């Protein structure tokens, strides 16, 4: 537990029947990063939704992506906005543009880098943080040396 990015007490994700996103979190549990893709027109979408915004199809698949991307933007959170973060600030949050999913972005944290070394365009790769007692796995990010 000690090597988790955040201390215990943070809100953890739960799947939401109204957006049918259980598949995303189940894939994280297998240490696979997936993006929802329309099986009729091929459009990716994130965060998950029941319908394709482009062709209005309700058919989709969970498409496994490489898990590689580049930092699109980032911040260093200093003011703790949740009780569990009081002793944890500062921490980084990054926005990653995936390399192989039509520009889909994901929000996460870079686990192995001081904030000063983070820059836009930096290549990163997904890594997974298991929370076995809570039955959930979070997708986080690590530097990808070119």
């Amino acid at each position, binding site marked *: 537990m000690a090597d988790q990015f955040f201390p215990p007490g943070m809100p953890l994700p739960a799947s939401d029947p109204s957006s049918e996103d259980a598949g995303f979190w189940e894939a994280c549990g297998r240490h696979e990063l997936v993006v929802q893709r329309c099986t009729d027109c091929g459009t990716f979408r994130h965060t998950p939704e029941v319908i394709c915004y482009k062709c209005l199809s309700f058919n989709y698949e969970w498409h496994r992506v490489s898990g590689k991307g580049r930092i699109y*933007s980032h911040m260093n959170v200093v003011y703790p906005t949740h009780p569990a973060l009081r002793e944890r600030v500062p921490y980084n949050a990054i926005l990653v543009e995936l390399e192989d999913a039509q520009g889909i972005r*994901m929000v996460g944290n870079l686990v192995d880098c001081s904030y000063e070394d983070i820059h836009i365009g930096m290549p990163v790769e997904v890594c997974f943080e298991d929370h076995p007692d809570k039955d959930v796995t979070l997708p986080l990010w690590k530097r990808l040396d070119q």
Partner: protein
Amino acid sequence: MAEEFSIKDKVCVVGIGETEFTKAGVITRSEFQLACEAIVKAVDDAGLKMTDINGICSYANDRNEAVRLATALGIPDLAFSNMQWSGGGGGGSASVANACAAIVAGYAKNVVAFRALAQGQFGRFGQGLAARSDRITGQAAYTAPFGVMTAGQNLAAMPARRHMHEFGTKHEHFGAISMASYKHAQRNPRAIMYGRPLTMETYLNSRWIAEPLHLFDCCLENDGAAAAVLTSAERAKDLKPRPVYIMAAAQGNGFRYGAGAHNGPNYVTTNHDVVAPRLWQMAGIGPQDVDVAQFYENFTPLVLMSIEDYGFCKKGEGGPFVEGGRIEWPDGELPINTSGGNLAEAYIHGFELITEGVRQVRGTSNCQVKDAEISLVVSGPGVTPVSSLILRR
């Protein structure tokens, strides 16, 4: 061509009312009472009786429901009530626009639009469910577990960083927006930051909230309420206050702007890029015609991007645009946030920017732009949906 279906120049603001504004938690009267007080003042300012009011509009899921207000205030026949969906402060101008629509459509004659916000009693707006839940679902499940929970973190910090990267925007540019609000607040005794001027040095040395956001990039947290009374241009002529015409109003949400986890296609825009063209089209004027503007400051980088989205400069040039006092009263070309705005007057979810926009047209602002005829109000950049107004003499 669709002139007859436009609200242009058909409705006027004839009354405004505000409670005092304080830091969150100072006012001990209930939020509902604050709503009533602001509405009573606005109706009185218009020279109307409460029994003349037959419509109530608000936004941001205001807790003080129209029917409770109508009941408490003795309104005999509430013919129209309306809540602008979601969008937090982005719905401010839309609440006025919806009142206009009701009046032009004949649903109601005299309509109140208002916002009451006692953050001391109900907690900070935008804090989100994440702070109170072990498990989080929906779009927030893709941000909150990574410590990205608040409006500042979601709407402003990372888009600001991207804007800085793409266009070379500097902290001093964001600081210029904060400085303008604080400078103007020094002339406004109603302002929370009255008597507390800000220097660029203090701004730059202020603590980080979420770098690149400094403390002074973020709006205040307050208690208070504000309201406006609207009626038809025809009826406004018979009332005592100088009528303030609604020249145009627009609201909206761009393509996929509401996509979760920062997946909106236009990352360094505020959602006003889709609303602004409709606003200018309805008004039949452009940014060059604006005398004074109120740009909702939830966070200063979003003000800078709104200025771009309304076409006062090109996308990416907002930084240089705000330099050199251009946005400061009295000498700037485009004075903005002349009461001190959300940063230095009070954060009443931007309704206090609407009342200030009205004062500018009436000629009663503490930072009065000489002979101001065209007054722009921009509500809630970076949220979904957003809205804006053009007020005129």
